[in-house]
């Protein structure tokens, strides 16, 4: 031992090459060591959820800067690096991502793009939502401006995914989640979109509720155009369902006695309430016009065109405002067709007969009340009567043979009188018309078939010449 101490006093010369060796070791090994430790530290963090993590190694000291999503995640990240072999110290520069109160996420759609703003809870949710937005919205540009924040309500991802699906149904608008409250505003892309969104909101995850839903639907349009030249009635736009569709087409067929109904209607959700009860009377009003257009947009009905005689526009307005369901509005722009040239009695009779072969004046069954569906036909007859103002006209009522003769006689008289009353109400002088009932005495067809009976139940206009 004493020898060792004595010899050790002579060991010093070796420290000079040792210092050189050390300098060389430092020179060559520092960078490789640092990159080795950086690699091992990065690998250690692989399974720990962090955002914006940066690792800087100086010598054997590792500086970790990262945004963590929980205190526990933060601690475990530091601990994972501390146990990496070779690491001497860990400088902890991690921080918790900010907590958002309230936690707001929103998706806003304008003409060209969808913008996601607010907060996302985790990078994985952020990526999932962006991917879902691309998938749901087809070719629309999606801009993700969300930040990562803590404080998302439970099942946030499911709610946001559901709502992104609804953004696809919007033309423009905004859907916002604020904590667990959902607000929606904007305009649906298609008719029925608003209803589809409202239905989808029922599937929101537990805990979420709809604070406000102000999605508007595009106007519900129904149009009818009466073309007197082509003799067509063209129906376009939407009807609520197939039953209403059939009812409207059938009503049009009854009201427009000489026009062919061209049916281009499509069924769609989103009709305003009382749709059928407003459209059917409006079609009746259109049938009384020589030419005209009916446009129903939501609850606003625009009727424009030419009436056949002076008293008609006033009657149309009065009847419609009485028939419309509550909340419906009428905008009538009705002028009166210029009076046609007068004709003599013979031509007048021909015109009456011709119109009455195309259409039949209808009454309520076994009663003398005029069927509203015959208003269009009656207006045409009035127009003809106005063209031969100097003639007297017999309004002849006929029935089929059903029922007893006295009743039929009375019914035919009353029905003829009802027609005369209608003509007088239209402004024609009462003195020109005589109501006569013939009961079933003058059949024009055999009364043994329903078809024959229908032909026998009729009103005839017989021009009697000059007064």
């Amino acid at each position, binding site marked *: 031992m004493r020898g060792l101490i004595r010899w050790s006093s*002579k060991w010093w010369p070796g420290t000079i090459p*040792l210092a050189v060796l050390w300098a060389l*070791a430092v020179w060559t090994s520092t960078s490789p060591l640092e990159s080795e430790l950086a690699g091992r530290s990065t690998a250690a963090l692989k399974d720990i959820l962090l955002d914006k993590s940066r690792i800087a190694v*100086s010598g054997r000291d590792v500086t970790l800067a990262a945004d963590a999503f929980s205190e526990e995640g933060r601690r475990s990240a530091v601990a994972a690096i501390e146990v990496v072999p*070779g690491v001497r110290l860990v400088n902890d520069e991690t921080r918790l991502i900010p907590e958002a109160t309230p936690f707001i996420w929103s998706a806003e759609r304008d003409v060209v793009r969808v913008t996601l703003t607010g907060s996302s809870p985790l990078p994985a949710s952020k990526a999932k939502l962006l991917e879902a937005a691309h998938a749901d919205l087809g070719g629309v540009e999606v801009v993700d401006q969300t930040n990562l924040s803590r404080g998302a309500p439970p099942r946030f991802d499911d709610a946001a995914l559901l709502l992104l699906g609804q953004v696809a149904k919007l033309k423009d608008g905004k859907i916002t989640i604020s904590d667990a409250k959902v607000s929606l505003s904007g305009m649906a892309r298609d008719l029925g979109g608003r209803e589809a969104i409202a239905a989808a909101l029922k599937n929101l995850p537990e805990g979420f509720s709809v604070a406000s839903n102000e999605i508007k639907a595009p106007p519900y349009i129904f149009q009818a155009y009466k073309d007197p030249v082509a003799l067509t009635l063209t129906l376009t736009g939407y009807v609520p369902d197939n039953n209403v569709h059939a009812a409207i087409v059938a009503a049009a067929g009854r009201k427009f006695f000489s026009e062919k109904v061209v049916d281009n209607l499509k069924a769609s959700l989103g009709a305003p309430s009382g749709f059928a009860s407003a459209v059917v009377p409006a079609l009746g009003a259109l049938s009384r016009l020589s030419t005209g257009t009916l446009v129903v947009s939501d609850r606003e009905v625009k009727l424009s065109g030419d009436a056949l005689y002076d008293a008609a526009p006033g009657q149309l307005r009065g009847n419609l405002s009485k028939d419309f369901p509550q909340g419906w509005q009428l905008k009538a722009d009705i002028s009166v067709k210029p009076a046609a040239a007068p004709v003599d009695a013979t031509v007048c009779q021909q015109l009456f007969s011709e119109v009455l072969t195309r259409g039949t004046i209808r009454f309520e069954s076994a009663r003398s009340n005029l069927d509203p569906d015959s208003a269009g036909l009656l207006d045409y007859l009035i127009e003809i009567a106005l063209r031969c103002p100097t003639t007297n006209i017999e309004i002849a009522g006929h029935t089929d043979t059903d029922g007893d003769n006295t009743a039929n006689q009375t019914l035919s008289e009353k029905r003829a009188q009802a027609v005369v009353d209608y003509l007088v109400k239209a402004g024609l002088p009462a003195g020109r018309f005589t109501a006569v009932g013939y009961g079933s005495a003058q059949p024009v067809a055999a009364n043994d078939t329903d078809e024959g009976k229908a032909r026998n139940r009729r009103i005839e206009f017989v021009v009697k010449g000059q007064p």
Partner: protein
Amino acid sequence: MIFLATFHWGWLLAALLLGFAMGWIAVVHRGHGVSKQLARSLAALVAVLLAAALARVVPGRPGYWLDLGLLMFALYLIGCAVGSWLRDRVRPGPASVN
């Protein structure tokens, strides 16, 4: 430490061999050794550096360089001790003559 040893085994082996050679020579070396005073000062310096390394007070790269230096120095000393002892064993004649 094990990581440093495996990562720098070449340099550490070189320090050990250098120490062994120096220890081998020191036994028959006729020059002057360091004085007791200087030896004490050097020992104190090494003790301070060792304390600094163990306390990890030197940050970053200098801290690493200090660790590496002390490790190499420790192996150098071990090499010296082994070298001197072996040389003393194989030297002909009584060790205590000179």
